[in-house]
């Protein structure tokens, strides 16, 4: 009862906020869309290429979300926690998920904007998959672990096999948390897309031919720091667990 009231309240608040933004933007002549920037013809051309590239990522995104959920269920339900493979995969996922999305954004920037001629569909897809999959897998894993062990035991005791337990009990119980995780992943993607578009516009207007960008090297430096920090944190975690 109380929970549903809270949900309605938050829906109302969000609707109000969206209505306000829409009203504000229309009354001011859509400042988000027409930011006073105008493209010359060639720039507009390459902008539509960028748009197309981004739209082509939608099926990739949906696919990788679906795949991530499947992976998380496989890891948690079928690959036992004691298995050494589980440990290795879980650690890799943790490291990838703990890298700030900004760094993936820079990666995306490199492939989508700065290397737009060279960047292939594959590299674009890889950027988005890297952005979405680790965080979705991790949140789904947490959702699966959050399902009460007693529910599983009750189902097993009635004679349900592993598959039935997952389909009938674990998935329905974990579903709201899984959706919340997907929302987080999508918001990451949206933020990065916004970043790519903004930097693209900025680049088209300020960058003269002959200017060089050193984003790739700085990305590598930042990525290695992120990797180092997550390795250290997982090492510390293991050490504190032992004592």
């Amino acid at each position: 009862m109380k929970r549903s009231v809270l949900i309605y309240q938050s829906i109302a608040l969000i609707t109000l906020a969206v209505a306000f933004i829409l009203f504000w933007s229309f009354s001011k002549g859509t400042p988000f869309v027409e930011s006073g920037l105008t493209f010359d013809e060639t720039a507009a051309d390459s902008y539509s290429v960028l748009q197309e590239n981004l739209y082509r990522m939608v099926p990739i995104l949906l696919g990788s979300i679906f795949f991530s959920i499947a992976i998380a269920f496989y890891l948690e339900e079928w690959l036992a926690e004691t298995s050494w493979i589980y440990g290795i995969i879980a650690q890799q996922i943790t490291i990838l998920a703990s890298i700030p999305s900004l760094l993936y954004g820079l990666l995306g920037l490199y492939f989508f904007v700065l290397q737009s001629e060279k960047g292939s569909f594959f590299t674009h897809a890889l950027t988005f998959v890297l952005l979405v999959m680790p965080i979705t897998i991790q949140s789904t894993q947490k959702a699966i672990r959050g399902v009460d062990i007693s529910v599983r035991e009750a189902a097993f005791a009635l004679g349900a096999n592993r598959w039935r337990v997952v389909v009938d009990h674990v998935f329905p119980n974990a579903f709201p948390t899984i959706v919340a995780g997907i929302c987080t992943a999508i918001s990451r993607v949206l933020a990065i897309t916004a970043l790519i578009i903004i930097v693209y516009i900025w680049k088209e207007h300020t960058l003269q031919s002959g200017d060089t960008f050193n984003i790739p090297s700085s990305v590598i430096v930042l990525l290695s720091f992120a990797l180092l920090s997550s390795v250290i944190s997982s090492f510390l975690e293991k050490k504190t667990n032992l004592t």
Partner: protein
Amino acid sequence: MQSRKTDPILQVHNLNVWYGKDQILKNLTFDVLPKQVTAFIGPSNSGKTTLVRCFNRLNDLALNFKLTGQILYKGDKLYTPKLKASKISRQIGMIFQKPIPFHKSIYENVAYSARLRGVKQSTQLDTTVEESLRKAQLWQEVYKDLQASPDILSNGQQQRLCIARALAGAPEILIFDEPCEQLDAAETPKLEAIVQSLKNRYTLIFVTNKRRQAARVSDVAGFLYDGELVEFQQTEQIFTNPKDKRTENYVTGRLG
């Protein structure tokens, strides 16, 4: 009271169980005869729950679980790689300490285990649900609205719903693992009455740490202490004339 001729439904030979390095059960040997109530009593951490979880292979889920010795169910080995745990738990039902209704309607909760064993026709499902709820003595309280969520039921009613759900799976053995632990005083006699009424159709195994309850409901009782089966015999014997000093201390309240 019981026929000596009947074959035991469960035979346990030299059962040892470890969780990692801790030995939980030490060299247990006994037979469970069909259509009577076998109780296991003992202080907490004596291995009662671990023992009954061996019967429906629920321990398979635990990490580092290791078992030696043999359990025979109707003469067949319970622990062989060929036999799936789900097949066993369909024939050996279990009621837990805490009532665990699923997030489905009352009807769907009971129908779930019937569906698991392959019942598909809706008329057959209806009769199974009604029969099971009647056997669990819950029908009178819920028949008006079977589509209601079990959340509206009291703790005791939920536990009876779990009994109905287990019965709908048509098990041969029904294990009660301290089923009254979380129930209020008024519900306990109802549950004991259900146990008595089920006795002539099912084999019942009853785990409890309440001595008097074991004396009331069971025909045969086993006293577990620190993983050992100290004594296993007729309930009357165990409570009035125990052979072992430790059993005597426990049933008289000096131990545990």
